[in-house]
C-alpha cells in the first residue's frame, strides 16, 4: 500500500465523494482482506467489540448478507433492522429512527433506502459512521467498488479500458456508481439502453451514450448488463419484456463484438433471457460469481477504513 495516504472519509455515501487515490486505497485494502475468506478459519479480530447495524428500508438479501458476512469475518457484532419506508407514513421519521438507533451507540450504520439521499440525511443526524448500501436511484458505492475490484483483478489495471454498460441506467444506482468509479480511474464508459431508460445529461457523469448496442459493446473490455426492473414499470418506459429482450438483450452474438478477453458482468439478480442470455451469463467470460466474492472483501475494507477514521 502507498505510504503517506490517509483515508479521510468518516462516511461512505457515494463514489462521487471518493478520489481516485481513495478508490485505489480501498481496493488495495480489499485485496489484502480477500485472503481471509479463503482461510479455514475465516475470522480476524480487527473489529472486535464494534457494533454494526444493518438498517434496511428496502429488501435486499444479497447486499445485506454480504455486509453481514464482512462484519462477522472481522468479529464485529451485527444487528439487522428491516424497516419499512412506510414507517414514515405511520409517524416515525427517518431522523427519529436514526436518533433512536444512534442512542444505542453503534459504530457503523449501514443503510439501504428506496429514496435517494437518505444516507446523506442520516449522516447529518448520527454519531456513527454511515455506509450507503444503495439509495434510491442514486448510488450503490460498495457494489461499484466491487465491480472495480473484479475488473482490476482480471485486467491488472483500471485505466484505458472500455466499459460498456447496457440497460436500465435510469433506475440503476449501480450504473451511477460504476460510471463515476470507472471514469475516475481513467477508463471510458459507454452506455446504451432504450432512450426512456437513460437519464438526461449522462455525459455530465462522465459517460458516453453510444448510438447503438453494437457500438457500445464493440471492442469493450467489460460488458456490464443491468437488471431490468420489473417492479418499476408504472410509467410506459418499455413496451414489453419480449421487445426489450429482442432489441436490447445481450446475446452471444452481441457479446462477441467485445474483445475476446472481455468480462461479462451483472450486479444481479439476473433476469435470464431478458437483459442477458443464459449462455452468456454462464459462459467462460462471465465473472458474475467473482463479483459476489469480491463484494465481501470490499465491504470488509470499507468497515475497516471508516472505523480507522473515527
Amino acid at each position: 500500500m502507498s505510504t503517506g495516504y490517509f483515508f479521510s472519509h468518516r462516511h461512505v455515501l457515494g463514489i462521487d465523494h471518493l478520489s481516485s487515490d481513495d478508490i485505489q486505497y480501498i481496493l488495495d485494502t480489499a485485496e489484502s482482506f480477500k485472503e481471509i475468506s479463503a482461510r479455514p478459519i475465516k475470522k480476524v479480530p480487527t473489529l472486535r467489540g464494534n457494533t454494526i447495524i444493518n438498517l434496511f428500508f428496502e429488501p435486499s438479501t444479497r447486499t445485506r448478507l454480504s455486509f453481514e458476512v464482512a462484519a462477522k469475518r472481522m468479529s464485529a457484532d451485527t444487528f439487522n433492522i428491516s424497516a419499512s419506508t412506510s414507517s414514515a407514513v405511520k409517524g416515525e421519521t427517518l431522523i427519529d429512527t436514526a436518533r433512536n438507533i444512534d442512542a444505542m451507540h453503534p459504530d457503523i450504520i449501514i443503510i439501504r433506502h428506496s429514496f435517494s439521499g437518505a444516507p446523506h440525511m442520516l449522516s447529518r443526524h448520527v454519531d456513527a459512521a454511515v455506509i450507503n448500501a444503495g439509495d434510491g436511484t442514486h448510488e450503490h458505492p460498495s457494489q461499484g467498488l466491487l465491480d472495480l475490484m473484479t475488473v482490476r483483478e482480471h485486467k491488472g489495471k483500471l485505466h484505458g479500458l472500455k466499459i460498456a454498460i447496457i440497460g436500465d441506467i435510469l433506475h440503476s444506482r449501480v450504473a451511477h456508481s460504476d460510471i463515476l468509479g470507472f471514469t475516475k480511474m481513467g477508463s471510458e464508459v459507454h452506455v446504451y439502453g432504450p432512450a426512456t431508460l437513460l437519464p438526461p445529461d449522462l455525459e455530465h457523469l462522465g459517460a458516453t451514450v453510444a448510438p447503438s448496442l453494437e457500438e457500445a459493446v464493440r471492442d469493450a473490455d467489460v460488458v456490464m448488463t443491468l437488471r431490468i426492473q420489473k417492479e418499476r414499470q408504472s410509467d410506459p418506459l418499455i413496451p414489453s419484456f419480449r421487445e426489450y429482450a429482442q432489441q436490447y438483450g445481450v446475446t452471444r452474438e452481441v457479446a462477441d463484438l467485445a474483445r475476446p478477453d472481455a468480462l461479462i458482468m451483472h450486479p444481479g439478480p439476473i433476469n435470464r433471457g431478458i437483459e442477458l442470455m443464459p449462455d452468456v451469463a454462464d459462459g467462460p467470460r462471465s465473472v458474475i460469481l467473482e463479483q459476489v466474492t469480491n463484494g465481501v472483501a470490499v465491504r470488509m475494507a470499507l468497515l475497516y477504513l471508516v472505523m480507522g477514521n473515527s
Partner: protein
Amino acid sequence: MANDWRIRNGRIIDPVNGIDRVGDLFVRDGVLVESPRDLPDSTREVDASGCWVVPGLIDMHVHLREPGEEYKEDIVSGTRAAAAGGFTAVACMPNTRPVNDCRSVTALILERAREGFARVYPVGTISRQSGGETLADFGEMRDAGVVAVSDDGLPVWNSQLMRRALEYAGDFGLAVISHSEEPSLSRHGVMNEGKVATRLGLRGIPTAAESIMVYREIALAEYTGRPVHIAHVSAAMSVDLIRRAKERGVPVTAETTPHYFTLTEEAVEGYNTNAKMNPPLRTEEDRQSICAGLADGTLDAIATDHAPHSRLEKEVEFDLAANGIIGLETSLPLSLALVRDGVLDPVGLVQCMSVRPAAILGVPGGSLSPGEPADITVIDPELSFDYTEDMVVSKSSNSPFLDWRLQGRAVLTMVGGRVTFELRATD
C-alpha cells in the same frame, strides 16, 4: 390618535402618477393628502432620507395556511411576516383545509384578516373542492370577497374546465390564475430534470411540463378573449411563449418569484429540502430568461408563492419533503438585487411589486394618489443584514436563503396610515 404623518425627505417613486423625486409625503386620517396644509400639530414625522417611499407592496401569491394548517402559519402570523417584508397587501391561495371554494371559508379568512397586519385578498378555487371536475360558485365567492380564482397547488388538467373558467370568471370580474403543470409529465418528479437530478438520482420534472400548460392557457385566452394570469413562471420556454403571445395581443399576464431569478437547480445539492418547490428550481439559462422577462415586461409581477412548512414536512427524505419555501421577508431584498444588477430600475421594481399586482387583481393600491388610503412602504435600498433563523417572523422557517447576507429592506410599512412594521423608531 389620528393617523397623521409627514414622511420627510424620501425618494418618492410612484409610477402611476409619473413621480420619482425626493420630497415629503403627507397622510391625514390614514389617507394620502396633497399638501401639509391641513395637518394638525400632533402629526408624527418619519425621516426617510436615503430611503425610497413607494406605494405599498402587494404580493399576489401567498399561502397563509389558515384554515387547517395553523401550525405552519396563520393569517395573523403570515400578514405579520408580510408587513416585515414591506407588503401592505397579499392575495392568499385557496388550498387551505377546507379549500376556499365557498362563502363561509372566504368570510372566515376576511374575519381573521381584521386582526392581521396587511390587507388580505382571498383567492377562491376554480373547481369545487379543487377537484378539477366542476366550476366552483364564482358569484357567491365574489360576493363574499374573493378577487381571483385558482386551483393553485394543483393544475387544472381538464382543458374544457379551464376554458369554462375563463369564460365564466369574466362575468364576475375575477382574475383566473393558472398553476401551469401538465401532471402526467411532472408525476413522481421532485426537482428539475437535468444534470443535477441525474447526479443525485432524483426523478426530474421537465420544463415542458410547465410550458405545455402555459401554452394551453395562452391558446384558451386567445380563443376566448378572456385574460389569464400565469403563476410562478420558472422556465425559459414559458417566458418565450408568453412574450410572443403578448406581442400578438393575447390577454395574458404572468408572475415569477425571487427564487426563480436568484437560485438554480444547484441549490438542491446535498438533498436540501429547502430548495424543493413546484415548479422546481431550473438551470442558469432559465434563470437568465426569467431576468430578461422581468426586464422587458414579459413577466408582469414578482410574487413570492410564500409556502410555509414546518420541520415535520421538511426534515425528511427529499422525495417525501413538501414543496415550497417561505418568501415574504426575503422578496424585497432579493428583488433589490435585480436593481443593483441593472435588470430593473427602481420604477420597474415598483411596477412589478405593487402597480401591476394591483391592476391584475383589480384591487386598490399601487399608487400614491391623494385621496387613496395611505398604504406605503419605506425602503432602505442599502441596508445590509444577515437573514438568520431567529429573525424569521413567519411561523415557519423553510427558506433556502437562511444565513444569506442580504442588502436592502423595508424599514417602515404602513397600511391605511397605521404602522404595521417598523425597523427603527419613528420620531
